[in-house]
């Protein structure tokens, strides 16, 4: 009973959504949007689980003085400071409940944290890609086989598409590669992928695929 009932719920909600797709009536759209709201709200509650896990793991590391435990102190400091700024109203010097305005969360310390800590690290992490795309190219683009050579050749042509050493032909070839074989391959992948997803979704609704519930 405990194990079977959730699968009944999976089937019912899945079947309803399929049914809903074919019914354009306002009443069916209303339920659809309503359920969508539910999802975000449940997601809001799930946040607490995540934060709890983060705190527990960090605290555990500090308590047992595991390797690098000092850094977990930094994690927790960052976490609690940001939370504090996020729910208090700093501006008026009153630490009451934060006032949500149309402009969003405007506690200036919260904004500073975002602009000068989150954004720089995030942008820099992202920019590491410039280095990694170079090192991956160097490491992996070796003409070991036909397949590897094709990969290498296509990459070289597209990368050199605006290099003045080569004639205008290289740009033409690069554009052709991006427009023709690319389109074919994308479509083949999309179709296979679509069917894979459709099949998995169907298996979930029918209760054949149960791995995600822990071996059902």
């Amino acid at each position, binding site marked *: 009973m*405990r194990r079977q*009932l*959730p*699968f009944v719920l*999976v089937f019912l*909600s899945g079947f309803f*959504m*399929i049914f809903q*797709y074919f019914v354009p009536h306002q009443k069916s759209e209303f339920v659809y949007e309503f359920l969508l*709201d539910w*999802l975000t709200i*449940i997601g*809001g509650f799930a946040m607490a689980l995540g*934060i709890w896990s*983060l705190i527990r793991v960090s605290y555990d590391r500090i308590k047992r003085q595991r390797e*690098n435990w000092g*850094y977990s102190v*930094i*994690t*927790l400091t*960052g*976490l609690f*400071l940001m939370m504090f700024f996020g729910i208090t109203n700093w501006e008026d010097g009153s630490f009451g*409940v934060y006032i*949500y305005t149309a402009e969003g969360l405007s506690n200036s310390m919260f904004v500073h944290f975002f*602009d000068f*800590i*989150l954004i*720089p*690290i995030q*942008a820099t992490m992202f*920019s*590491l890609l*410039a280095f990694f795309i170079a090192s991956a190219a160097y490491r992996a683009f070796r003409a070991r086989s*036909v*397949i590897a050579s*094709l*990969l290498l*050749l*296509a990459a*070289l*042509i597209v990368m050199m598409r605006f290099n003045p050493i080569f004639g205008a032909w290289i740009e033409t070839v690069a554009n*052709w*590669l991006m427009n*023709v*074989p690319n*389109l*074919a*391959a994308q*479509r*083949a*992948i999309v*179709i*296979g992928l*679509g*069917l894979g*997803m*459709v099949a998995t979704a*169907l298996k979930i609704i029918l209760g054949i695929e149960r791995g*995600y519930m822990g071996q059902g």
Partner: protein
Amino acid sequence: MKKTSVIILSGVVILFLVSWLVKGASLSGEENPYLQGFLTTFAAFLTLAVFSFLYRDNPFYKFAEHLFVGASAAYWMTLGFWQTLVKKLIPKLSDGLANFFEVPTEEHSYWYFLPVILGLLLLMRLSKKGGWLSRWPLAFIVGYTAGINFVGYLRSDFVKQVSSTFVPLLIDWQGVGHFFSNFSLAIDGQFVMMLANVVIFVGVLCGLVYFFFSKEHTGLFGTASRVGIWILMITFGASFGYTVMGRISLLVGRLTFLFKDWLGLIS
């Protein structure tokens, strides 16, 4: 070893302080110059700390990483709290709470107690006994999206692709004579355009053959599958090469921050 660490650390601290003071002094005239100077210097320090990871893992990277993890988790939690729970849910349930949080009241809908119950059931995971109850909200979420995905992908990734694979082989066909007398290799010529359609058509079919799982890839089938993987590889190579430009721009963005906003070396 210990000694070098201390030297490096104190070096960084001194550089940080110098940068802070210099930056603060250069910003005099603006509001809170030394706060601004500190923030910019700190952002630059974090940027360099992340870049130092390219050399090897080190305490500065660890510092940035852990700070980032903690602060970003709190950021998303705060945002989720205000935007979903407070803004979406509370006005539907209680005027008193809505007033408390200063959000506009809305018409009550007691249906919204259900997601609250499901959300609370999800939190039952934390209890040893009631853990199994957390499967209920999960079942709802998974079933709901599986239903959407089932029809959604069948339509967009299958049915729709059928019609878009219908491309004409012959373009502007005015007879064989005309074709050969006007033969050209120009990118917008008849031959190249027709070739493109053929390549797309054959490419899609061979690509699909590669994705057949229940048949051995031998003989003609094997050849088609091999052509399929070739086309896939050409595509992957080309996409990889095409992305390089955008990624370099990201790096340039960070370098601009360091050299312009922080050091002021570029005007």
